[in-house]
């Protein structure tokens, strides 16, 4: 099959979990990578090595281990800056996850009555609720791009939505439910034209597309570690250095200050301005190893692999009677997450039957209830591939869906 990673067998060996079997001795077919990706040995080993040999608190321990830990943590910042093609390492802020990064922005960007924030109907709840809260606090208005029937952003009223009162345009690069890849450059340009901040949620994009923050022209971009083969507990906020330094602090505490008196404090510059308290050190170190691993394989090659697998999966899924894919049907402009409905079988029940055959998918609303409501469905089943996914695994999924239909006596 054209486009697959040439060393797929070798890559699969990098992920020890793919070797395991599940109850009944069935092999694991992991198709839930948009939920969380599996971890390569190099990430696991890097984290174990750090804990076994270099563990200490960072930036405040005046001993050799402290220096090693600080070097590892700050080294991870360099690795992430390289991964994003950031112009300065100071633009990389470590957070707990993408959700915290979005909340940091929604909490610190100043909004007031008369302002508006524009999001989209296909956002993950984290990029909806954080702005709803900000608008409720400030009196700003929340607006959103609707969706077309084929699961793309409806740009028909874009000129009315993004206007001179818009302060923030926040949107996902790749939808976690529909798979849609959004027109990033166009949306950033619209924000820029009215002097609004552009905020990109790259949680689904960073694992599978080359992300170049300078090329996007955006102001802020967030992603999470555990979807890019890194650990949980670590996320990234990237922002233009000047803008980050203009924002007020988010959390107050150790390491984010210049000086503290009982009356007042002054604050460190980014990134430390936003990293109060002891950060997730080994998680950052693991993330550094993860993004280096992805760059070593090449994001362009990973993207081609995802497109090849997605095209094959779209074809296979449509061979299942009564199955409807939600989102674009052309693999060329979508990511590797495919949500679908199957007539007569609830997503929960599909996922259960699939699980009994070792096929791991997600069932539910995938933290995108508004996008589901837009298509008149309460929940869906989602398969999501990654760089280790094989065509044979897609075959196993399709075959298991046929089995689910017969198990529930549909058709």
């Amino acid at each position, binding site marked *: 099959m054209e486009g697959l990673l040439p060393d797929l067998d070798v890559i699969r060996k990098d992920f020890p979990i793919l070797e395991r079997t599940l109850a009944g001795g069935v092999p694991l077919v992991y198709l839930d990578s948009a939920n969380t990706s599996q971890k390569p040995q190099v990430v696991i080993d890097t984290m174990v090595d750090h804990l076994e040999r270099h563990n200490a608190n960072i930036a405040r321990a005046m001993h050799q281990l402290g220096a090693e830990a600080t070097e590892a943590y700050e080294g991870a910042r360099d690795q992430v800056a390289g991964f994003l093609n950031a112009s300065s390492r100071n633009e990389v802020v470590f957070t707990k996850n993408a959700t915290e990064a979005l909340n940091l922005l929604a909490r610190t960007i100043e909004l007031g009555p008369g302002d508006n924030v524009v999001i989209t109907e296909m956002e993950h709840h984290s990029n909806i609720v954080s702005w709803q809260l900000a608008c409720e606090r400030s009196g700003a208005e929340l607006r959103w791009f609707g969706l077309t029937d084929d699961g793309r952003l409806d740009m028909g009223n874009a000129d009315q939505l993004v206007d001179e009162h818009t302060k923030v345009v926040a949107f996902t690069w790749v939808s976690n439910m529909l798979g849609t890849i959004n027109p990033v450059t166009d949306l950033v340009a619209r924000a820029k034209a009215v002097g609004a901040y552009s905020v990109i949620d790259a949680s689904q994009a960073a694992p599978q597309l080359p992300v170049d923050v300078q090329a996007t022209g955006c102001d802020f971009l967030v992603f999470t570690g555990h979807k890019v083969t890194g650990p949980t507990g670590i996320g990234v906020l990237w922002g233009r250095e000047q803008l980050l330094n203009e924002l007020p602090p988010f959390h107050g505490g150790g390491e984010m200050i210049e000086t503290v008196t009982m009356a007042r404090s002054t604050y460190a510059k980014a990134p430390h301005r936003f990293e109060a308290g002891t950060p997730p050190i080994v998680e950052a170190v693991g993330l550094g190893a993860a993004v280096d691993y992805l760059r070593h394989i090449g994001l362009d090659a990973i993207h081609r692999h995802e497109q090849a697998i997605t095209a094959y999966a779209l074809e296979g899924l449509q061979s299942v009677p009564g199955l409807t894919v939600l989102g674009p049907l052309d693999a060329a402009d979508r990511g590797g997450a495919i949500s679908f409905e199957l007539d007569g079988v609830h997503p*929960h029940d599909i996922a259960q039957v699939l699980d009994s055959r070792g096929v791991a998918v997600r069932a539910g609303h995938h933290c995108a209830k508004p996008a589901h409501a837009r298509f008149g469905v309460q929940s869906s089943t989602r398969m999501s591939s990654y760089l280790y996914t094989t065509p044979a695994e897609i075959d196993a999924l399709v075959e298991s869906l046929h089995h689910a239909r017969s198990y529930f006596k549909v058709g």
Partner: protein
Amino acid sequence: MSTDLDALYQDIILDHYKNPHHKGLRDPFESEVHHVNPTCGDEVTLRVHLSDGPDGAVVQDVSYDSVGCSISQASASVLTDLVIGKPVDEAMTIHQTFLELMQGKGQVEPDEDVLEDGIAFAGVAKFPARVKCALLSWMAWKDATTQAQSEGAPS
């Protein structure tokens, strides 16, 4: 593994799923609640109608409208079969018995005299992710019944 799957999807459950009993919202009612399972999005709107009986309140009717998986739908159907027509006290005891079965991690032997078709859910208790599905309408019923009683409805 298919034996575990068959333990979960007993024929009784699939029958109730395909042909749910007492489904649809009806009048009269003293209380109505809307419960959701936030992780999967399953929803139920449930109404309770109580009446006076010789020994206290009786569950006169339970009506509901719901969307969700086979387990949550079948469970609502079985619930209505078990509690409609029963004194509230007895229905609450059945509720407690079902709750204990669901939270028993598959170690509780179900009592068919009390739970009737509800014993089919014994297999669900072995699937932690599905226990909430089975309990959705039961929790809604308890909530609605408690509200109906506290709001000065027939008691």
